C-alpha cells in the first residue's frame, strides 16, 4: 500500500482556480490514467474523451476571462452506467437497451454537478440493471477489487467504487436499492453515501425498484463526499466542515443482535475500535430485522420484475441468464406478498423513527460481514453455514434500505488488511449528523482511503 493519495475533488478545483493546473491538464491526465491503468481492474465501460476535453477548455477559458469559477470547476467524475449523459445511450449494464435513442439531457444529479463545473469523463461498470452485489457483468466483464484483484469489488455500483478506490477518479456516482453503494464502498475502502430516500432527484437514472432506489456519491475523503452531496441536493453553497467537537453532542449507539452476528474477526475489531474512539457505550436493537430484509428483497424483486416484464416477454435471451431468472421470478410474485411487504415498510418506519426520537442520533453497524470475498470462492458465512456471497452480501444493508434512512459507508483505517466499511445511519434528512461524526474520524486518522498498488495519478 502507498501512502501518497491523489488529490481530491476540492483540492483539484482549488489548484485549477489558482492557476496551478489547467482543467485541460487534469482531464487529460485522468483520461490517460483510465485508458492505461483501468485494464487491471476493469471499472470503466465508456470514456467521454472529446466532450470532457471540450468542457475542460471551457473552464480554462472562463478562468482566463477572470470570471469566478464554480466550486467543482474542472473536476473529473465518473457515473455508474445507468445515469443519462446527453447524446449517449444509457445501457444500465445491459445489451437490451443498446438500440434506445441517446439521452436528450443529463440525469438531474449529473446536471447539477456539471453546473458546479465538474466534468463527466466515463461510465462505470455495474451488475446488469443493478440487480446484484458483485459487478460481474455477462456483457461488460467483471470489475476487480483494486486492493486485491483476486477479490470482488462488490456491486452493483462496483465500477464507481473501484475507480475511486484506485485513485483513477476523485468522485463518482452510484445508485443503491439494497446496498449497491454501501457494499462496494466497504469492499473497496472508499466513502459512499446512500442519501435519504427521495432527497436527491432520480430523473435520468435508469430505475430498478422505485420504492427503494436512491442515487449517491463515492469519494476518497469526506469533504469531497459532502460537497458533492450538497451540490446534488441543489444547495447554492457547500457547508463548511463541522467544527472540532461538534459530534460530541450526538447520541451515538451501536446496532446489536442481527448486526452483531456473522462478523469476521477483523470486522469485530474495526467496530470495537471505532466505537471506543467515539465513546459509544449504548446499544440499540431494531425489531424484526429479518422481516425488514425480506421485505426489501421482495419489493425489489416484484418492482424490478414488473419493470422488465414487457421486455422479458419479447427478448428474455438478451438478458444475463442470472438477472433474467431473478426478474422473471419477481414478476410473478403474488400481489398479497408485495402488499404485505409494503405494509411492513410502513410498520418498520415507525419503529426506526422511535429509535431516532428516543434513543440515538447516529447508529453504527457493519456494512458487510468482513473483507471482500475471493472471486473464485465467492462465499460468506451466515449462521455457521457457508453461503453464496452474491446472495448474502446484503445481510446488513438490505434491512436499512427499507426505511429509506440515510446511510454513510465509513472506510475504517484501524486494520492493516483489506478494506472494511461500517454503516453510519441517521434519521431521514439528517445527513449532516453523519458528516459530523465522519469528519471527526477522518481527522483522527481512524477512517479514510488507502491507495492500492494499481493506483493512478490525476
Amino acid at each position, binding site marked *: 500500500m502507498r501512502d501518497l493519495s491523489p488529490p481530491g475533488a476540492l483540492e483539484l478545483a482549488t489548484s485549477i482556480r489558482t492557476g496551478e493546473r489547467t482543467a485541460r491538464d487534469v482531464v487529460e491526465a485522468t483520461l490517460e490514467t483510465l485508458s492505461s491503468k483501468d485494464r487491471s481492474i476493469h471499472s470503466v465501460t465508456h470514456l467521454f474523451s472529446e466532450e470532457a476535453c471540450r468542457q475542460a477548455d471551457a473552464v480554462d477559458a472562463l478562468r482566463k476571462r477572470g470570471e469566478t469559477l464554480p466550486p467543482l470547476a474542472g473536476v473529473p467524475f465518473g457515473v455508474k452506467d445507468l445515469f443519462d449523459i446527453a447524446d449517449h445511450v444509457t445501457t444500465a449494464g445491459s445489451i437490451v437497451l443498446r438500440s434506445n435513442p441517446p439521452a436528450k439531457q443529463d440525469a438531474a444529479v449529473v446536471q447539477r454537478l456539471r453546473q458546479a463545473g465538474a466534468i463527466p469523463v466515463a461510465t462505470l461498470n455495474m451488475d446488469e440493471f443493478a440487480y446484484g452485489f458483485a459487478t460481474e457483468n455477462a456483457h461488460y466483464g467483471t470489475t476487480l477489487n483494486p486492493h486485491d484483484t483476486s477479490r470482488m469489488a462488490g456491486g452493483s455500483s462496483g465500477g464507481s467504487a473501484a475507480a475511486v478506490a484506485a485513485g483513477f477518479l476523485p468522485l463518482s456516482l452510484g445508485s443503491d436499492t439494497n446496498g449497491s453503494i454501501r457494499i462496494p464502498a466497504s469492499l473497496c475502502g472508499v466513502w459512499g453515501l446512500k442519501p*435519504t*430516500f*427521495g432527497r436527491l432527484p432520480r430523473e435520468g437514472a435508469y430505475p430498478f425498484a422505485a*420504492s427503494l432506489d436512491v442515487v449517491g456519491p463515492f469519494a476518497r475523503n469526506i469533504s469531497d463526499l459532502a460537497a458533492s452531496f450538497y451540490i446534488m441536493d441543489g444547495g447554492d453553497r457547500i457547508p463548511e466542515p463541522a467544527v472540532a467537537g461538534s459530534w460530541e453532542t450526538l447520541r451515538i449507539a451501536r446496532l446489536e443482535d442481527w448486526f452483531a452476528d456473522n462478523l469476521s474477526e477483523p470486522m469485530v475489531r474495526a467496530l470495537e475500535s471505532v466505537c471506543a474512539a467515539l465513546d459509544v457505550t449504548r446499544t440499540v436493537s431494531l425489531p*424484526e430485522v*429479518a*422481516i425488514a*430484509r*425480506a*421485505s426489501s*428483497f*421482495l419489493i425489489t*424483486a416484484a418492482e424490478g420484475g414488473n419493470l422488465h*416484464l414487457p421486455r*422479458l*416477454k419479447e427478448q*428474455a*435471451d438478451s438478458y444475463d*441468464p*442470472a438477472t*433474467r*431468472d*431473478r426478474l*422473471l*421470478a*419477481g*414478476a*410473478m*410474485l*403474488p400481489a398479497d*406478498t408485495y*402488499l*404485505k*411487504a*409494503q*405494509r*411492513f*415498510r*410502513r*410498520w418498520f*418506519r415507525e419503529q426506526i423513527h422511535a429509535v431516532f426520537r428516543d434513543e440515538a442520533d447516529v447508529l453504527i453497524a457493519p456494512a458487510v460481514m468482513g473483507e471482500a470475498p475471493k472471486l473464485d470462492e465467492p462465499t460468506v458465512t451466515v449462521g455457521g453455514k457457508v453461503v453464496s456471497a452474491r*446472495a448474502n452480501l446484503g445481510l446488513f444493508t438490505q434491512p436499512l434500505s427499507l*426505511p*429509506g*434512512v440515510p446511510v454513510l459507508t465509513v472506510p475504517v483505517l484501524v486494520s492493516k488488511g483489506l478494506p472494511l466499511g461500517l454503516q453510519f445511519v441517521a434519521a*431521514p434528512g439528517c445527513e449532516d449528523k453523519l458528516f459530523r461524526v465522519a469528519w471527526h474520524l477522518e481527522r483522527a486518522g481512524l477512517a479514510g482511503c488507502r491507495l492500492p498498488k494499481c493506483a493512478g495519478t490525476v
Partner: protein
Amino acid sequence: MKESQTDLTLLVQARAAAIGLDLSDRCLPGVLTNTELLGQYADLLNRHVFSDECEPAFEYVP
C-alpha cells in the same frame, strides 16, 4: 407448506400463464430456484401480524 418440485413447477407455470408469460425451458430451472428463495422470504413476512390500519407505504416519505 412447501410444494414438491413438481408442484412448484406447476405453480410457476400457472403464475406465468396468468400474466401472459411464456416461460422457456431454458429459464425454468433458474426461475424455480428464485421462486423458492422468494417463497422463503414471503414465509418470514407472513409471520408478521398487521393491524387493519397499517397501510401499504405507497406514497412513502421516510
